[in-house]
């Protein structure tokens, strides 16, 4: 029992991170029909930028956090402006290959800027781990869950209540109709890129204390996030959230009860399974309201 609980705790911690990454994928897919395979690299950039801001730059936690997310969002906007919008024939396959290229490029930048060493930052707070029924819950895990839930609430509010959020949703539903109505759809696409990469950076920041951050951490995280998004239903906020947590928990249980070699395999087994059984994901964005 205690063991299961322990696996569960580590599962929801990882799951929360996969969920944020998945939401980043989903949101961009929603407004641009594009799967950004460079998304994982923005997570990496977020983590390493946070390491730099809080280490050598000696910024306190909160300013470093905000500065990191802002910087990576701007990097995302530049990515859209320079690499995506300049494409003369923006067919989906061309754009997807561009994002794969961008991911290799960003990994190269990461290696040049931070070297091949792995870094870590101290946890957000130094509370001792909580003891719940014999299982330990790290204070950082609580931070992660809290930040993720807060962020989901903010996103929900943004898409439901603000005009800009609604305009973005309208663009996702029907770009041409949104354009006719007078919504500047290019601006909305840029915003989607900024928001999506910002979310990537956020997930990078919150995991930087519990993992080793290096230039090549993004690929696997990106793929896991992608699996989570597919699992929950690409294009849906709640689907991504469910997919992320489900993946995290199953992964942790797989590691605990079967073999630690199974960690990364779990995600891809799940991906294959969901593609066979229910290609739209658990909450299929094809039939339900997106975001």
């Amino acid at each position: 029992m205690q063991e299961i609980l322990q696996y569960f705790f580590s599962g929801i911690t990882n799951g929360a991170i996969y969920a944020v990454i998945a939401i980043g994928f989903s949101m961009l897919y929603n407004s641009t029909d594009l799967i950004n395979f460079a998304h994982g690299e923005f997570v990496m950039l977020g983590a390493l930028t946070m390491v730099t801001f809080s280490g050598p730059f000696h910024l306190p936690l909160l300013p470093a956090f905000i500065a990191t997310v802002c910087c990576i969002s701007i990097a995302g906007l530049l990515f859209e402006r320079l690499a995506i919008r300049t494409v003369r024939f923006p067919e989906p396959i061309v754009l997807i290959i561009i994002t794969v290229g961008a991911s290799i490029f960003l990994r190269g930048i990461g290696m040049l800027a931070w070297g091949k060493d792995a870094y870590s930052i101290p946890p957000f707070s130094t509370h001792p781990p909580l003891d719940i029924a014999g299982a330990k819950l790290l204070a950082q895990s609580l931070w992660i869950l809290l930040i993720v839930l807060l962020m989901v609430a903010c996103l929900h509010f943004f898409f439901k209540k603000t005009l800009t959020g609604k305009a973005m949703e309208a663009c996702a539903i029907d770009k041409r109709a949104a354009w006719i109505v007078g919504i500047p759809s290019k601006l909305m696409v840029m915003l989607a890129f900024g928001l999506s990469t910002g979310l990537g950076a956020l997930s990078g920041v919150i995991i930087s204390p519990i993992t080793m951050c290096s230039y090549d951490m993004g690929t696997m995280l990106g793929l896991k996030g992608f699996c989570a998004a597919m699992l929950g239903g690409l294009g849906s906020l709640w689907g991504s959230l469910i997919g992320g947590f489900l993946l995290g928990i199953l992964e942790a249980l797989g590691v605990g009860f079967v073999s630690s070699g199974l960690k990364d395999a779990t995600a891809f087994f799940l991906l294959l399974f969901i593609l066979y059984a229910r290609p739209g994901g658990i909450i299929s964005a094809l039939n339900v309201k997106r975001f």
Partner: protein
Amino acid sequence: MLRIRNLKCFYGRIMAVKGISLSVGKGQIVTLIGANGAGKSTLLEAVCGLLPRWEGEILYEGDSLKGLDPPAIVRKGVSLVPEGRMIFPPMTVSDNLILGAYTMIRKKEDAAVKQDLERVMELFPILKDRYRQPAGTLSGGEQQMLAIGRALMSHPRLLLLDEPSMGLAPLIVEKIFQTLEMLRNEGMTILLVEQNARAALQIADRGYVFETGSIVLQGPAPDLLEDQEVKRAYLGKDYGGFYDH
């Protein structure tokens, strides 16, 4: 109010509109009628900025619309009710209407938006009953009313409608056309593209008949309604002769 001179529109190498000229006076309903593929919708797309390539001149209140994108044209006071309605089905009626006012809210014209919303509710009381429903659950006629309401929310002075009667029951069509007349009587200028020629000509002040990208007939709507050629081709009259012999 709207003056088009020698407009040519292209889809790739195909010329869909072959040098047409027309004008819409302030406070008028002008209708473009003609068969499928005659270039009516293409012309509307050119006016509201959806078509990237066209030649000629489109003047709205004396200013050229060349090179403007749809949001800029909406801001100038031209609003399109597109073919097939193109509402946002998963969003509520109220969200659809508010997004129609996107440009107005961005201009900080909140008071005007409120007035427009009340006006739309007055014109289409059914939308008030459906206010919190997803737009996709509305019937076809209600969706068309929502599309018109959404277009009105941007506070246009020129309203473009592309086939508002398509696929609707005659009673609903009548209701929608009555609303258009009411709007005209309040000073709105309307450019109406229709295949339902009779209904359109009955409310219009002027009409243009399109055929394969050119205007073949034009004149005051009552004259067109009586025109033998129009009757034969678009109003489905005078076929009696065919069958009797």
